[in-house]
């Protein structure tokens, strides 16, 4: 029995190790080619393919905007569920929909935004960075709500009672007792949601589309790391495929950094 389970564990580990191996093997050398992080992709098939600067910055901009949208709303919804809605039918209905949303394939969020915002040319443009950010925010929202609700429920009800018994209005209990007590847990959950959003390709495919050059105009198309990987890896030219590997390693590294921060904050608060 023990041997079988050990074998199963090894079988599960093989692809994980191979993924990391291939990322490093194929991607790491790209990091040391000149201009990889400091120039933009040229889009030229035969000449110098350029670097990935616009993809990194584009991803960061779009995820930052998605974070600004999803974290406050998500924590707000979680606060409503734990502090006000509790077990009312409305709160339970919201919980049910949030659970359903967690399981919705990410491409559906892209499709939804494509129909609502892109084909309607809302805001005067078709594909736009901010529309991708909205799609990512929709994807991150249920993750934020679920993780925040779990953390908020960990705040002992005795603390809420203590504050209420001192004559505190409920909103002050929320802001001065519940939120400070659960701050590190909320941060951890938010960072994990950000890491998740950072790596998503599907919601960006037909909302942001892509661009080669660097732009910070949120109403225009923008380059992103997942999209760059998607386009470059399908190129017939090896030099461009290699850019995809270098980008993939960069993306994984950034996601890893977010996860490490999340773990660091979580372990600090429990200590």
């Amino acid at each position, binding site marked *: 029995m023990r041997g079988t389970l050990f074998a199963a564990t090894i079988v599960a580990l093989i692809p994980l190790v191979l993924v990391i191996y291939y990322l490093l093997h194929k991607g790491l050398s790209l990091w040391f080619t000149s201009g990889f992080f400091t120039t933009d992709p040229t889009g030229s098939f035969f000449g110098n393919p350029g670097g990935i600067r616009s993809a990194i910055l584009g991803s960061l901009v779009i995820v930052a905007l998605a974070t600004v949208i999803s974290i406050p709303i998500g924590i707000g919804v979680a606060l409503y569920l734990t502090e*006000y809605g509790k*077990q009312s039918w409305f709160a339970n209905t919201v919980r049910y929909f949030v659970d359903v949303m967690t399981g919705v394939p990410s491409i559906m969020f892209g499709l939804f935004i494509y129909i609502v915002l892109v084909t309607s040319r809302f805001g005067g443009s078709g594909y736009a960075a901010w529309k991708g950010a909205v799609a990512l925010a929709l994807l991150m929202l249920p993750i934020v709500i679920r993780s925040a609700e779990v953390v908020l429920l960990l705040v002992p009800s*005795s603390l809420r*009672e203590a504050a209420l*018994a*001192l*004559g505190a209005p409920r*909103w002050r209990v929320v802001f001065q007792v519940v939120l400070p*007590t659960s*701050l590190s847990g909320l941060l951890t959950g938010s960072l994990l949601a950000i890491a998740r959003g950072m790596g998503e390709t599907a919601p960006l495919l037909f909302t942001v589309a892509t661009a080669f050059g660097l732009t910070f105009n949120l109403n225009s198309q923008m380059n992103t790391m997942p999209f760059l990987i998607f386009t470059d890896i399908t190129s017939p030219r090896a030099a461009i495929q290699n850019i995809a590997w270098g980008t993939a390693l960069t993306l994984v590294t950034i996601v890893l950094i977010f996860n490490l921060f999340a773990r660091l904050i979580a372990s600090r608060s429990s200590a």
Partner: protein
Amino acid sequence: MNTPDTTSKEQADVSAGGTPAPQSPQATGASKPAVTGKAGHAVNLKDLNAYYGAEHAIKDVTIDFPANEVTALIGPSGSGKSTVVRCINRMHEEIPGARATGSVRLDELDVYAPDVDVTAVRRLIGMVFQKPNPFPTMSIFDNVAAGLRLTGTKSKDLKDLVHRSLQSVGLWDEVKDRLGSPGIGLSGGQQQRLCIARTVAIEPEVILMDEPASALDPISTLKIEELIDELKERYTIVIVTHNMQQAARVANSTVFMLEGEVIEHDETTKIFTNPSDERTERYVTGKFG
């Protein structure tokens, strides 16, 4: 947010609740006078009924809690002692599905009147819980000051108030050199006295204590009991306890409850030496409960 932070409005509500009665600093909005020498106020329950959903937890309870006295509530688990106490400062209604009918009066103030603000009621009627529950994110100082900060009350002499509050619970000398360190770093007994200081700092008229010493060691318990004896000079105190020796030591009068009803309410000495009701006698002599 449901309750806007209009402290002045809340205060106005209580005054409008209509009554000359508790001339507390909170109710009048006047600056705080010296805590010492303040006359206490009586609490009267009349035909109080409380429910948890369909469960009828307390039935037609009528009790008078005299000013500046300690009244103990005793009775077996589930007899409704805690519920009675939680009805007095309207904490009962925080439990989903819970409701109460009947009348609770603080002198002339009808605590359940529709125009009375619940947060103002709770500032007049402080509460100490069974388990010490200092705020874990706050320092010792901030815990004592929490009542003011959580109600948006500005105080010029916050340091002085914290000093006086800690001194009145006998904690000042133990913590004066580490006011900035976390409140949860204290021992259990110190934490409970910190929680009492936190309650004293809002300068209530009445202090409710729900088994305040049941989670503490005997020495800490003794300190809390001595403290109760001092606090009754200034406050009306209602204490729920499972410990009958404790009731006998600290309470002027004692109420014996059973299955949500008041069985007997009399001088503590009479309850413990010569009770009128046979059920009281059986309980205080340890034959059941």
